[in-house]
């Protein structure tokens, strides 16, 4: 309860017209309890009110409820160079998880979505198994700011489009959706000018559907077919399927793929950026899908 509280009680007994109790005279634990009802951006803003509020905003109780329940496992996995999670405050853990953390070399990123508190993963094409990826007749690799990994793979022309990936990760319990981020046609930027879409004439072969698949270690399996000939020149997230994680403490294993291996026609003009996994609440909030 602390000194602030008992002095308040004493004031009430000795003063005939007690001064109004002030919110910053509350014990730090009470201020922390109030702050924990707020969103992270509000907490950090109110931490600037005065030193008492600042101190209260650092309390673990404020941030613990905003972390995924398995955050200790995630810290061990992702912050390996920091030693044990006991040395980090909950606020530090939260702030670090909010920013994308690379893992598996540079090919994957994970972060905590601020608005919905869900864990999101992005897997670059470099982390996927792509048939013919190193053959320059078929695929080129392009540096670009249009990908969070600063690189995309561009399919010039090929009969056999096959992209496969897998992931083993300790997702906190919940429902998730998996997407491929793709674009038909290749945009190029001339220095100093706006993004220009060209090479649409090179796009062909998408009048037959692409097959998507997702399998997860809890036995779920989803397969679908989708036409990619939507608005060309725009990045789209193609929804492959959903999976459910029941246990936050066991790694979920995922296997996913997209394929168009109908050899009666070639496919050309596809940009492949990455695979995204989002909690369903984030998908609904971001409304980009």
């Amino acid at each position, binding site marked *: 309860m602390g000194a602030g509280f008992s002095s308040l009680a004493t004031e*009430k007994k000795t003063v005939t017209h007690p001064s*109004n*109790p002030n*919110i910053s005279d509350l014990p730090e634990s*009470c201020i922390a309890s*109030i702050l924990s*009802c707020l969103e992270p951006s509000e907490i950090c803003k109110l931490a600037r*009110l005065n030193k008492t*509020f600042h101190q209260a905003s650092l309390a673990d109780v404020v941030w613990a409820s905003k972390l995924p329940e398995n955050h200790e496992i995630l810290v061990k996995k992702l912050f390996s160079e920091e030693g044990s999670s006991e040395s980090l405050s909950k606020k530090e853990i939260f702030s670090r998880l909010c920013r994308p953390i690379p893992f598996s070399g540079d090919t994957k990123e994970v972060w905590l979505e601020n608005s919905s508190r869900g864990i999101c993963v992005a897997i670059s094409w470099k982390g996927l198994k792509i048939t013919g990826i190193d053959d320059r007749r078929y695929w080129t690799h392009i540096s670009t700011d249009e990908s969070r990994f600063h690189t995309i793979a561009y399919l010039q022309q090929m009969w056999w489009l096959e992209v496969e990936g897998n992931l083993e990760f300790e997702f906190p319990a919940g429902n998730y959706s998996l997407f491929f981020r793709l674009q038909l046609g290749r945009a190029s930027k001339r220095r100093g000018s706006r993004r220009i879409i060209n090479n649409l004439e090179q796009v062909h072969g998408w009048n037959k559907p692409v097959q998507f698949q997702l399998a997860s270690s809890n036995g779920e399996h989803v397969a679908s077919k989708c036409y990619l000939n939507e608005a060309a020149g725009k990045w789209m997230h193609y929804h492959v399927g959903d999976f459910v994680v029941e246990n936050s403490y066991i790694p979920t294993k995922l296997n996913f793929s997209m394929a168009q291996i109908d050899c009666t026609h070639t496919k050309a003009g596809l940009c492949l950026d990455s695979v995204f996994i989002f909690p369903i609440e984030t998908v609904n909030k971001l409304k980009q899908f």
Partner: protein
Amino acid sequence: MSSSEERKLILKSSDNEEFVVKESSAVQCLTIKNLVEDRCVSDPIPLANVDSKILALVIEFMEKHAETTLSNSEKKEFDVEFVKKPFDDLLELILAANYLDFRELMDVLCNTCAKQMENWSVEEVREKFNIQNDYTVEEEKAARAENPWAFE
């Protein structure tokens, strides 16, 4: 059927007013629950840090939430009306809930205060709640630059 012999406790406020409450309601306050379980219950239980006005309100909340016949939404409706009080009373209630370790009351009160503080600028909150700024100019600048990640 409820027993006619419900165990009762007497709580005494700091200004020496006594209140009779059912033990089953009072143990929502962990401070009281611990006294009961450790068999340290004196008669009456002195609550030196809670005056009669506030204690009466705490008991009103306590008894409402202990009623098994009420649904959760009815309790929520009660809570909404309960917190329509002057801000000073809410602060006194927070202090009482903290002292008594009454989690449910604490949560409702903290949520209410939080809602009243959010979406205002720092200067507006300071003015509204009469909070003294004890930062120096440099410290305030540093505080403003902290936590950029929270606003992304």
